[in-house]
């Protein structure tokens, strides 16, 4: 029985890991077909000719890391927030975190010349949106739907602000700011990749730890307290992790919010109901992001479609299909 449990909970992770590996190989190979897998791998560690090393280390690697990291961050953030609110609608993008981060990032590009780096501002934006949504609804309390409604309102305000700033900005700054508003993996700042990498290093173990408490909180706050869960601490930590991951992910890849909705949904289908699928959502998020980026680069070649549009165009209908195929999902 014991081994059974381990097998049934572990195989989706293995499956997702191999899927991610496959996507990684495909993504690192697709840029230029003149490099073999061997050349790619040796270029990755700095061996081989200058051209291949540049191609891999300067062009492919950052883009792939951007996809993997941001997908992972958004998948985990969505999973945590949905579980906390016991509501599928409670994803960071729906409650306005993405819009808050975007508005601050765009503001730093087009409107307010501040010395603070754009990613830091995106984080501040996500935190501001979260603070407003939760502050106005009286904290992330038991009425899960209240902060969702507040968040939708906060998100609308920030969305309008972004549009307003873009309309007022001159053409050049608006062009610079454009990737922030749709979500794109093209030519992202390497500095931010490191930031998000560090954030994940901190937040992933914390998310795995929180998943245990959140899992029990699904049974109601009273049951969770009875089982020794520190409700308030768990809530605030979860919210902090969500804000940090969303803020940096948006700072890196822009508002690719669909990932936060779709990744946990797919992850939940993969595992038994007795767990919060944090590792699964993380891996699914990465896979989806790589997949969406691949489609964006190839489907309409030579024109490249930003990844945010792909996730909305392909991910939206796919998510609808999943939900329609297996109805009856009410409570998380």
């Amino acid at each position: 029985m014991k081994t059974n449990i381990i097998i049934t909970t572990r195989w989706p992770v293995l499956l997702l890991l191999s899927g991610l590996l496959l996507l990684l190989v495909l993504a690192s190979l697709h840029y230029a077909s003149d490099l073999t897998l061997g050349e790619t791998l040796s270029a990755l560690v700095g061996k081989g000719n200058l051209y291949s090393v540049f191609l891999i280390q300067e062009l492919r690697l950052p883009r792939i890391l951007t996809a993997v990291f941001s997908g992972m961050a958004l998948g985990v953030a969505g999973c945590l927030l949905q579980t906390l609110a016991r509501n599928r609608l409670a994803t960071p993008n729906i409650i306005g975190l993405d819009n808050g981060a975007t508005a601050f990032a765009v503001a730093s590009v087009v409107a307010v010349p501040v010395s603070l780096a754009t990613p830091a501002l995106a984080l501040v934006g996500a935190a501001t949106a979260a603070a407003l949504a939760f502050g106005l609804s009286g904290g992330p309390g038991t009425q899960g739907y209240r902060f969702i409604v507040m968040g939708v309102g906060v998100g609308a305000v920030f969305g309008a602000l972004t549009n307003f700033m873009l309309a007022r900005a001159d053409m050049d700054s608006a062009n610079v700011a454009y990737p922030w508003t749709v979500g794109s993996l093209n030519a992202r700042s390497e500095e931010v990749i490191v930031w998000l990498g560090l954030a994940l290093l901190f937040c992933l173990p914390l998310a795995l730890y929180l998943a245990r408490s959140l899992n029990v909180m699904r049974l109601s706050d009273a049951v969770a307290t009875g089982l020794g869960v520190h409700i308030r601490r768990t809530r605030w930590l979860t919210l902090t992790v969500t804000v940090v991951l969303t803020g940096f992910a948006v700072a890196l890849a822009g508002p690719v919010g669909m990932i936060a909705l779709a990744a946990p949904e797919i992850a939940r289908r993969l595992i038994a109901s007795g767990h919060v699928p944090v590792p699964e959502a993380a891996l699914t998020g990465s896979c989806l992001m790589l997949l969406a980026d691949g489609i964006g680069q190839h489907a309409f070649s030579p024109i490249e479609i930003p990844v945010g549009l792909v996730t909305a165009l392909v991910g939206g209908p796919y998510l609808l299909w999943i939900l329609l195929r297996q109805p009856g999902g009410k409570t998380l």
Partner: protein
Amino acid sequence: MDTLATTGRKNALDTSLGKKPALLSAENLMLGYGGKTIVDQLSLEIPAGQITAIIGPNGCGKSTLLAGLARLMKPKAGRVLLNGRCIHQQQGRSVARQLALLPQQMLAPDGLTVAELVRFGRQPHQGMLQRWSDTDARHVEQAMELTRVSALAGQPLDEVSGGQRQRAWLAMVVAQDTPLLLLDEPTSALDLGHQLEVFEVIRQLVRQGKTIVMVVHDIIAACRYADHMIAMKNGQVLASGTPDAVVTERLMQQLYGVNCQIMRDPVSGSLLLAGVNRTGHVL
């Protein structure tokens, strides 16, 4: 403070307490929501190794009292002592290894099976790294046997009957393997047969040496199964002691505003209420 009433209550307690030390007690406990006080200056001791039933009319504060004892609510004044130490100063997980709670508000996530639910009861005994042990498996198995839900292990919680679901929740609390269990109306919304099943499980737990505190609406069931009774009204304890000492015609009048006659069940020997009618109304 009504010193007389307190000492009187203490004496009544002492007789039913016997020699065993109290695991759980409250000192001048004051509980409420916002500006409203629901439980006021309440002191009590829960006798170890017995079934204690908290009775009283709707809104008397009995569920609030249980929530306070189970540290779901922070007291406005006074304190709850678990094993002689203030419950709010103890680690959540360490409290959860001494005291289990079956609340009234429970949510079952979609598709969660009975066995998965019962396994949650082992959470306080697991560390971050050391996850599932043979001890955990044994306790889950025993809890499911005791509550007779073993046959339902693989079934989703939302597909079993109300009585089975309640027993599954009870199994989760039993799997927690605590010396003390607090149950908030464990038999509400169950029919007579299913009520008896739950009470029989509770009785078996006490035979294993556990201490039970339960909020019960059905006063006859309380008389039949409880060793110790606490009668509450308006956030105060009106009487406590054995059912024989507590359940009197006068107390029923005070608690529920009803006239009745107390009789003894010819079969079980426990107390019964007969001819219950509202004060001022002729039957």
